[in-house]
């Protein structure tokens, strides 16, 4: 295997890895606010991408506007789900909410099938597939574009969490809900904002990845990799989600190169089990002490 080919495979892994990272960030945002694993995150991404695509089919909108439509659709969907369903189950146990988000994922996927069939569709891309040469190395603009777009979004999120009132409120709620409430933070508003924000991140990820894995009612399954990525990085940590996603993307691509076929597909899961056993708080997470 030539170095050029290796570089290409790694860059390609970083591109899918950025999508995993964005999925992981969405999951973590929701988890930090409502302590819920959102099984429907992938399906929310799928629906908003479909809405953007439909706008493209009907109105022949340019791609940036498709992205905007998808993001608005995602925000609305996140808001609606939180207000109509999740908020009513605040009193319920985590297990109950888990089943609710599971139900949501089934409903969204089935609704997408009814609206857009089981078929797969090509999706317009910001970036070209044809390679550009950087010295001896060939890289696909689509990979670089996905990585760049994702990094930009992550930077924006960083700014939001550090620099805005809402971001600080979200971090406060993540750390200690009761204390946050006592400090005068509207926890309900944070719930709502978290679901919307997570959906928006997913919406952007959907538009970025749809040209690569194609648009279909089953594209939401990519969220499973988001779970793995979030755990690798330490569930709850944003930088962890980013590192976990990139790591997963690259490892998934390197495993088939160097490992016998018998084991290569299990690598992400074996790695996850190993990390959980050795370092449950993830590669970046801080060990948490349990208090009485």
């Amino acid at each position, binding site marked *: 295997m030539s170095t050029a080919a290796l570089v290409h495979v790694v860059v390609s892994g970083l591109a899918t890895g950025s999508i995993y990272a964005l999925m992981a960030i969405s999951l973590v945002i929701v988890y930090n606010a409502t302590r819920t694993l959102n099984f429907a995150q992938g399906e929310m991404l799928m629906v908003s991408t479909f809405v953007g695509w439909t706008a493209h089919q009907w109105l022949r909108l340019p791609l940036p506007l498709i992205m905007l439509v998808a993001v608005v659709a995602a925000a609305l969907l996140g808001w609606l789900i939180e207000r109509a369903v999740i908020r009513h189950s605040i009193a319920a146990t985590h297990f109950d909410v888990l089943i609710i988000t599971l139900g949501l994922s089934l409903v969204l996927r089935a609704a997408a099938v*009814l609206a857009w069939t089981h078929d797969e569709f090509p999706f317009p891309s910001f970036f070209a597939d044809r390679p550009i040469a950087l010295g001896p190395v060939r890289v696909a603009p689509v990979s670089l574009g996905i990585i760049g777009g994702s990094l930009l979004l992550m930077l924006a999120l960083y700014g939001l969490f550090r620099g805005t009132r809402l971001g600080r409120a979200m971090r406060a709620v993540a750390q200690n809900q009761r204390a946050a409430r006592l400090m005068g933070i509207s926890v309900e508003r944070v719930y709502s904002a978290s679901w919307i924000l997570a959906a928006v991140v997913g919406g952007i990820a959907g538009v970025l990845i749809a040209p690569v894995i194609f648009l279909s009612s089953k594209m939401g399954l990519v969220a499973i990799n988001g779970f793995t990525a979030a755990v690798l990085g330490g569930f709850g940590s944003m930088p962890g989600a980013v590192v976990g996603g990139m790591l997963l993307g690259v490892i998934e691509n390197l495993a088939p190169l160097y490992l016998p076929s018998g084991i290569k597909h299990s690598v992400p899961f074996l790695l996850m089990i190993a990390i959980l056993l050795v370092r449950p708080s993830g590669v970046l997470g801080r060990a948490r002490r349990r208090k009485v």
Partner: protein
Amino acid sequence: MRRALWLAGGLALLLWPWAAPPYFVFLASLIVVNAIVAIGLNLLSGYTNQLSFGHAGFLAVGAYVAALLTIHAPALPVVAALLLAGLATALVGLALGIPCLRLEGLYLAMATLAFGFVVVEAILNLDWITRGNDGLRVPVARLGGLALASDTAKYYLVVAAGALLVWAAANIVRTRTGRALLAIRESEIAAQASGVHVAAYKTLAFVVSAFYTGVAGGLFAFIVGYLSPDAFDVFLSVDFVAMIVVGGLGSIPGSIVGAAVITVLYDTLAAFQNYRPLIFGVILIACMLFMPGGIASRVRFPVLKGDNA
């Protein structure tokens, strides 16, 4: 009154194959198998708060062990095959349970999820014994000279095993062990302080849960008659979790009812084709919104004592 109910229930189970159309005999077997898994999962999740998304993996281990034993040792009576399937799975449960002691809630859920994927990959790659993607045809179970070939014979096998396991579970939760498990669910630290050996009991819950699911896997192999890795995907694990949450965490009758509800729903909704996941999802959501805590929290089950929902 209680005795009459028991009697009526037992009689109904025994007479079912003679009263119901043949298909419903098969369906009842499937419900009982799922109920055994649900009870096993509930002993883990409902009683010690350790959530598992990997029980399809345990089911697969039990199913393949029972099937392979029956293929390679045809003289082995089915009871032994099931017992060995349960024990082998319990061993796997032990191997997974001990390292997982350090993990809680979400992390445990993810570790078990990964375990489920790894089991499926292992079945694919051990194809010299599991036949991998080609799938494995399961021979007819034998009990002495008796071949359990008909749906009715399989039904009685499943019901006998199910009754035994329900009885055992009811006894486990009623005893010291059950109380210890519940104490762990409420607060590990308080349980520890009251002298409960938390690590030992949590591991025990893992092992028992895996044993139940392994036996169910063996029964599954015999009633379905064919195994392939596609049967045991992560969605099956999720279905098992749905069964115990809908039925009620920490309740044995709840597990049975939950298993019955989900199994019958799946079966009935199969005719709705594209609408099946939609209807199923709506029912799940409605159940949890209007019945948080599951069916067991709303209905008093008069039959089993020691029910600590």
